[in-house]
């Protein structure tokens, strides 16, 4: 039976962790994710979980401890943001290539420098090629639901990859919203026991984790890792279907909002989708055929599905809350356009970088994007592809 509650995103994720009752949590505080291990520490202290909680001295050590614990057969969760994620970088790749399904609540914050504690996506976007599955969520409910699903996705025998549950710092992590929680036993039954095929100190099957992998086999192992990421797409959908049965909440690779007959559309990630949906609603009321796609699964990237969803659109804007500094466009833009290339070539696509370092995102800004799309759809003339909104030039 679902329970209604009011929680911040971080509280909701900490509750999910309590319900999952992982074997090990190793963490180091960083705003705005600090509350996740902090709430969890009180669950540990109050005996509400059986978890070994390790308050390590840095994020590098946090991820290292998670890697050690997960290799030892433990279910492991941690949380971080921005520079904390950056300090984990070396270990992110090792977790993924060692096929250790660690779960990470990645609370999006601008990556230094300059130092900034507010929200954008420069932290997790930088880790997009680290081999982790990345799920993104618009609000508290999605952050909670994604964390529970993340554990089951990562640990699936066809996947065995670590998973990030990404949600926006402050906007989602600190704002309190209504939420529907599962019962503790429902979550426990949903995620089940973690029983990996291989783990350290299994007397029958001695193994080494992370040994030198030279020219003779390194490439094959990377190839298998790539295959696991491909497998993940199917598993993510299976887990979502099972989750829907339990909760009635439907998750896919992305959410399509008023896309059936949309002629102009934007692709966006995380909380801005909420703001943008309001704009779509008001445009629809005026008869404008506007739509929106909100990416949930960014790694693996849902290439074929995105193409199918966008095929009939005339003009499209991809919104990146992160710049790539490639002098060409943001990361999501690059992925979307490369998906469309050769598969849906007629669509005019532009890119907007927005909201860096927590710059406020207003409905007006998004309305202007749709106005420009309407113009492009009408005239066929695209103009500048790589754009910004909300910045002083």
């Amino acid at each position, binding site marked *: 039976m679902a329970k209604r509650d009011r929680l911040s995103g971080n509280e909701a994720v900490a509750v999910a962790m309590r319900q999952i009752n992982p074997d090990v949590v190793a963490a*180091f505080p960083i705003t705005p994710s600090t509350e996740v291990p902090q709430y969890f520490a*009180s669950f540990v202290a109050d005996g509400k979980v059986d978890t070994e909680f390790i308050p390590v001295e840095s994020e590098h050590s946090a991820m290292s401890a998670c890697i050690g614990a997960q290799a030892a057969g433990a279910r492991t969760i941690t949380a971080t943001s921005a520079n904390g994620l950056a300090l984990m970088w070396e270990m992110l790749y090792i977790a993924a290539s060692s096929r250790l399904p660690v779960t990470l609540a990645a609370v999006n914050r601008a990556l230094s420098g300059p130092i900034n504690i507010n929200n954008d996506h420069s932290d997790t976007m930088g880790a997009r090629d680290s081999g982790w599955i990345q799920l993104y969520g618009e609000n508290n409910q999605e952050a909670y639901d994604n964390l529970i699903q993340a554990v089951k996705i990562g640990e699936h025998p066809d996947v065995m990859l670590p998973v990030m549950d990404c949600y926006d710092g402050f906007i989602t992590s600190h704002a309190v919203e209504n939420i529907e929680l599962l019962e503790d036993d429902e979550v426990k039954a949903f995620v089940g026991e973690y029983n990996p095929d291989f783990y350290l100190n299994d007397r029958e099957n001695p193994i080494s984790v992370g040994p030198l992998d030279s020219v003779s086999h390194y490439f094959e192992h990377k190839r298998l890792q790539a295959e696991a990421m491909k497998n993940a797409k199917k598993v993510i959908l299976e887990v979502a279907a099972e989750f829907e049965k339990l909760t009635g909440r439907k998750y896919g690779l992305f959410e399509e909002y008023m896309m059936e007959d949309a002629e102009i559309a934007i692709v966006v990630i995380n909380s801005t989708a909420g703001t943008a949906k309001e704009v779509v609603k008001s445009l629809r009321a005026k008869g404008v055929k506007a739509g929106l796609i909100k990416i949930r699964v960014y790694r693996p990237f849902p290439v074929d599905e995105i193409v199918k969803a966008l095929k009939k659109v005339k003009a499209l804007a991809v919104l990146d809350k992160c710049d790539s500094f490639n002098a060409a466009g943001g990361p999501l833009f690059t992925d979307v356009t490369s998906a469309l290339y050769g598969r849906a070539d007629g669509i005019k696509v532009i890119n907007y970088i927005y909201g860096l370092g927590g710059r406020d995102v207003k409905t007006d800004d998004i309305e202007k994007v749709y106005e420009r799309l309407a113009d492009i759809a009408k005239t066929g003339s695209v103009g500048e592809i790589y754009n910004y909104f909300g910045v002083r030039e």
Partner: protein
Amino acid sequence: MAIVFQKPKALSDVPLHYCPGCTHGIVHRLVAEVIDELGIEGSTIGVAPVGCAVFAYNYFNCDMQEAAHGRAPAVATGIKRANPENIVFTYQGDGDLAAIGTAETVHAAARGENITIIFINNAIYGMTGGQMAPTTLVGQVTQTSPYGRKVEAQGYPIRMSEMLSTLEGPSYIKRCSVDSIKNINDTKRAIKKAFQNQIDKKGFSLVEVLSTCPTNWGLSPVEALDWLRENMIPHYPLGTYKDIDAEQKA
């Protein structure tokens, strides 16, 4: 009207953001007074940490560089090696210096880098809202040790000054406190020596200052000073842990 008391020149004329009763402000003043008295304002470069002192660059009237969390001693090493004539100091909390940046601290000390480190030990991560630090005392309540630090789970607090003084690299290591007028004066003398050592090219000097965090300790400023005296000083004895001048005299 005659001016009887004013801010040191090395402190800029802006309000500090520190919580009421926080001793970060006292230590800022001491550092600035020393910079004034040694007449090194024009040649001093500071490295700010990540922690409550992150805004130190707004307060010290000298060029400042902001380091990533824990990396100040390495950044300072770079500045000093590039400009040996500059006086380079870092100002770091215990999370910065004794947790995430332990490696940088130990290796700058081991190399005997000719820099000055001001180390604020308040036994907690202040800025992030009061989580356990490596310097948190056994039994101390923090956000991540809600019933007190337990040795079985979280081990023992680190005594950085003692640990660093086992190295050959450092020239001067002293632990002070700012809980009383006498100790504040002592701290100032130590900070001055730590800067003078650098001017005299004597090498790595570190002054650990026992400080309060009334906000995250959940105490009033006065209670916090008492708590420091009653709990921190017994575990972190004040004194000189290394002084090559004294060794040479002996």
